[in-house]
């Protein structure tokens, strides 16, 4: 890490735990009597508590958004290139919150937590949670932190769906929504990919119907395959071609079923890495939350009606090579916002990286986000 990067880092951070004793009625109908959320904060909350920004995570990330841990300096936050002093979301002006969503596997209450009803890990019995449930719990965390209204809620992909949902569920509590690489719901193709991932997990003999903790095992192989499938959808064809092409791992074909091509090696590596730290039950639930997200569904499929009550201003960003949530899907959101005469800016970033572009350090993308936060800072006097 060079000195310039270091100066722009929030530095050493530590997670905290918020406990909630007020029962939570989930969309599924199940009620959780109590739960915990792990979160991190960066920057300082200003005197009138107006400079808070919530950063929502996507499928495989969590509350560790920026900075690094004292005892694990290589564990840098997943959006560290976006958040820090002098970065697009500038922690000298904003108080930034990252939270691990309910059902997660990074410390918040989830399938690995103890079910108070049985005294054992929830496992398969942990309820299915939705984007709306997450937003409700995030609002309760905001209550605990004394934040009435967020200057902005921001996210990419599934995180962006949470930002969008915030504008519908708590319109009076959000000033701006930064909706990046998003879709107003999943397409049949998106759901199909998720279903294959879930099948890979549940077909793993170590899955044990989701109660694998009791068997002291994990469906690692299934999770690997699930991640490999997911990963393909995050990259563009061009990006894969330029990164790997048909390059061979050992310079020759092996005439076996082991790794021949670099792309195979890469996917296996990604799968292995992921299955080391991620929990299969959480993965199942997060993919379901993605599948279920569809704010227009309650309004006859009309997104414009769904967004009628939203009052936030929006920055919507898509990436040209994102085929998972293509620019067309973002334009659906923009159209619904225009129908409601909401303040909206829409940018289509010409980036080669596919869906993953939202996590990468692209100058045009970051300049735009920086300029937008600059506008928010001016509004709130931060």
């Amino acid at each position, binding site marked *: 890490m060079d000195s310039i990067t270091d100066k722009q880092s929030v530095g050493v951070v530590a997670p905290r735990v918020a406990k909630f004793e007020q029962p939570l009625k989930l969309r599924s109908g199940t009620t959780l009597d109590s739960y915990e959320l792990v979160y991190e904060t960066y920057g300082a909350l200003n005197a009138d508590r107006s400079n808070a920004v919530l950063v929502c995570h996507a499928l495989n990330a969590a509350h560790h958004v920026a900075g690094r841990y004292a005892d694990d300096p290589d564990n840098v936050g997943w959006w560290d290139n976006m958040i820090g002093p002098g970065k697009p979301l500038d922690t000298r002006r904003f108080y930034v919150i990252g939270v691990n969503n309910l059902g997660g596997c990074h410390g918040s209450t989830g399938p690995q937590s103890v079910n108070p009803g049985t005294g054992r890990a929830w496992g398969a019995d942990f309820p299915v949670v939705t984007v709306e449930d997450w937003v409700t719990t995030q609002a309760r965390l905001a209550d605990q932190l004394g934040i009435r209204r967020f200057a902005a809620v921001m996210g990419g992909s599934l995180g962006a769906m949470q930002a969008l949902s915030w504008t519908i569920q708590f319109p009076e509590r959000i000033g701006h929504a930064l909706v990046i690489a998003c879709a107003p719901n999943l397409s049949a193709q998106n759901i199909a990919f998720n279903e294959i991932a879930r099948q890979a997990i549940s077909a793993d003999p170590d899955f044990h119907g989701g109660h694998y903790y009791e068997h002291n095992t994990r469906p690692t192989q299934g999770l690997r395959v699930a991640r490999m499938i997911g990963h393909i959808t995050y990259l563009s064809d061009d990006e894969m071609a330029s990164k790997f092409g048909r390059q061979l791992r050992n310079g020759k074909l092996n005439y076996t079923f082991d790794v021949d091509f670099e792309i195979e090696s890469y996917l296996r590596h990604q799968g292995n890495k992921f299955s080391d730290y991620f929990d299969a039950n959480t993965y199942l639930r997060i993919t379901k939350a993605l599948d279920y997200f569809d704010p227009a569904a309650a309004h006859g499929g009309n997104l414009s009606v769904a967004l009628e009550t939203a009052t936030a201003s929006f920055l919507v960003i898509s990436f040209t090579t994102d085929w998972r949530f293509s620019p067309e899907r973002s334009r659906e959101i923009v159209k619904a916002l*225009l129908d409601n005469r909401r303040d*909206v800016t829409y940018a289509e*970033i010409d980036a080669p990286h596919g869906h993953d572009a939202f996590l990468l350090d692209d100058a045009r993308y970051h300049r735009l986000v920086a300029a937008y936060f600059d506008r928010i800072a001016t509004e709130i006097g931060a």
Partner: protein
Amino acid sequence: MKTNAMQRADFAAIANWVKPGARVLDLGCGDGTLLAYLNEQRGGAGYGVEIDDDGILACVENGVNVIQGDLERGLSGFADGSFDYVILSQTLQAVRSSERVVREMLRVGREGIVTFPNFGYWRNRLQVIGGNMPVSNRLPYQWFDTPNIHLCTITDFEDFCRDHGVHILERIVMRGGSAVTLLPNLLGSLAVYRFERAR
């Protein structure tokens, strides 16, 4: 907002026409100067459409709503009659499908406003007679690097409107920031029109 609206004589004319609080769509809005000017002068909800990344960034910096897109590909993201005015300021001469763009303007907006450099301006004519394509303040490009592919005269535009069901409501012809009433197609360098669909 650093308004360089004074450099754009057409802005004041447009602002005069736009009713306070009106919904405005500015096609090819660039850095959003006109929209910022209109917001300042007229209030209301304005949006720009711009294709260029730098324009989008500048619009955000100028506090203007902007949608990135290619207006040549139509305005499918905008509902019928969703704007009071759709503006095409000094862009008509640079679009490929001029007819389609004007048609889309009048689908999305109740009224259209266009401004364009008048190719019939005497200085332009003189340069052509002298044997060269015109180069001037309003037409600052050489023939080989100009984005202006559909230049027209005031007469050409009015013929176009007549033939394409466009009803002109108002016209201002300008030169150097002031209105020209005498022989406008000869003495005016900039044309500003407000129009609607012919009934």
